[in-house]
């Protein structure tokens, strides 16, 4: 099916399209759906979609293994790059709307506020993954590519801590994301133990 990838691509753009629509409408003075603090609303919106795309990316391999649906594999890189794109918008809108590029404050936030520290580290860890996502780099790095991209599990943990630490009182939302994240991590651990047992029995 040639249409799967383009269709998913368009779906992945929908949150961004909604965000742009809100910004344009607000700039022209039409709607107030973003509320009294539109900058913060945009930062939050893109942060949520970053985490969702991270989880979606990590769903690809387990689903492919469980349902032998190999076509899904072609979506993994694209979903990962959408995760990186929404993370970039999240970070840029935070710097633009909330900190207004006062660089002293950005530095202070990164150093002094633990939830921003982990968020920033998570973003920095995403960078090498995005840079090495093209086929040329995959070929060039060979086995090391796989090792490098295991960073995504560290990023997942950091992203969940970021959400947990910025929550003020009700942890329902953080708990749902954490449950999905831990389920996906658990699948990897189970798979890793199983393959190790197979290897050992072969020896």
């Amino acid at each position, binding site marked *: 099916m040639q249409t799967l990838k383009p269709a998913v691509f368009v779906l992945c753009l929908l949150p961004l399209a909604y965000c742009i629509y809100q*910004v344009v409408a*607000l*700039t022209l*003075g*039409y709607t*107030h759906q973003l*509320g*009294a*603090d*539109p*900058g913060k609303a*945009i930062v939050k919106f893109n942060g949520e979609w970053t985490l969702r795309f991270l989880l979606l990316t990590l769903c690809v391999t387990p689903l492919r293994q469980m349902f032998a649906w190999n076509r899904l594999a072609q979506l993994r890189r694209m979903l990962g790059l959408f995760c990186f794109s929404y993370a970039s918008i999240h970070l840029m809108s935070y710097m*633009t*709307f*909330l900190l*207004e590029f006062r660089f002293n*404050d950005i530095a*202070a*936030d990164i150093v*002094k*506020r*633990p*939830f921003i520290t982990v968020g920033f580290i998570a973003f920095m860890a995403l960078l090498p993954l995005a840079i090495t996502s093209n086929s040329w780099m995959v070929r060039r790095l060979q086995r090391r590519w796989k090792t490098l991209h295991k960073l995504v599990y560290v990023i997942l943990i950091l992203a969940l801590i970021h959400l947990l*630490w*910025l929550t*003020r*009182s*009700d*942890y*329902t*939302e*953080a*708990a749902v994301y954490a449950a999905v994240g831990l389920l996906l991590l658990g699948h990897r651990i189970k798979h890793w133990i199983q393959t190790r047992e197979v290897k050992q029995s072969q020896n």
Partner: protein
Amino acid sequence: MGIKPSEITDEKTYLKRREFILGAGLGIGLAAAPFMAADARSILRHTKNIGGAPWLGQAIDGATMGEPSTIETPTPYEYVSTYNNFYEFGTGKGDPASNAKKFHTDPWTVEIAGEADITGEFTLEDILTPHPLEERIYRLRCVEAWSMVIPWIGFRLGDLIKRFKPSSDAKYVRFETLYDPKQMPGQRSSFASIDYPYVEGLRMDEAMNELTLLAVGLYGKHLPPQNGAPLRLVVPWKYGFKSIKSIVKIEFTRFRPRTSWEMTNPREYGFYANVNPEVDHPRWSQATERRLPSALFRSNRLETKMFNGYAEQVAQLYSGMNLKRDF
């Protein structure tokens, strides 16, 4: 008796107000509101009907102008009533406005308890009747580093306290919000870190201060449920979470009450919670604030003032105290 704000409105302002009302009718009022709210007093008197007890509505209509009031531009009603922290109705800023629509505030009773001559259950009417209402425009500074300017309708908490004759053992006043999980979805959450009902407290001299209000309205109307109807505290020199909403109990105590945020996270939230630009919250700086509504490329950032700019009225309450330790 003072003069009602509507009686001193000059023609220019009146026309502006008419523009506002017409604009709202055409659906473009929202966009224009930030520029037209300069005369915010009673602007909503003719445009909104929130509900609540009719007798209370009459009392609110009779409110006079009170002092002190800031001359800063009030935050438009649409934002005051849609951007709320009232976790009993959800943690999103817009959740309280959507989830509190059917909140029952009439009939309402308030229990007065503890170290006082007169205690017991009182109807809201019993609580309010002796007190003439006044409108005061105060700054509200949230611990999350945003702020608003709100025209409250209310009366001095100190006047209420005197009626119930607290004894000399009454060193603190403890307040409690309604506990009603049927009406308040946030109280049903299994992952809430706050142990409901919400509790707040003041030292007796803070409670008796001339700035401390019990509010029943804003913008010349009943308090909307999401803003703490039918009765809430307003302590303008402290972070917003001190100004407890939908009060059902006021108790005079010998010892400092344990308040909700202090119990939830004592490292981040203190009992005093005085607005103080020099003491940062562990998760964000308190040196500046964003006056809402903020636009995308114009965030209205202001320097935060000690005691939220009310040092003249309240600084003496804390003389000799180390406010970095007792934050």
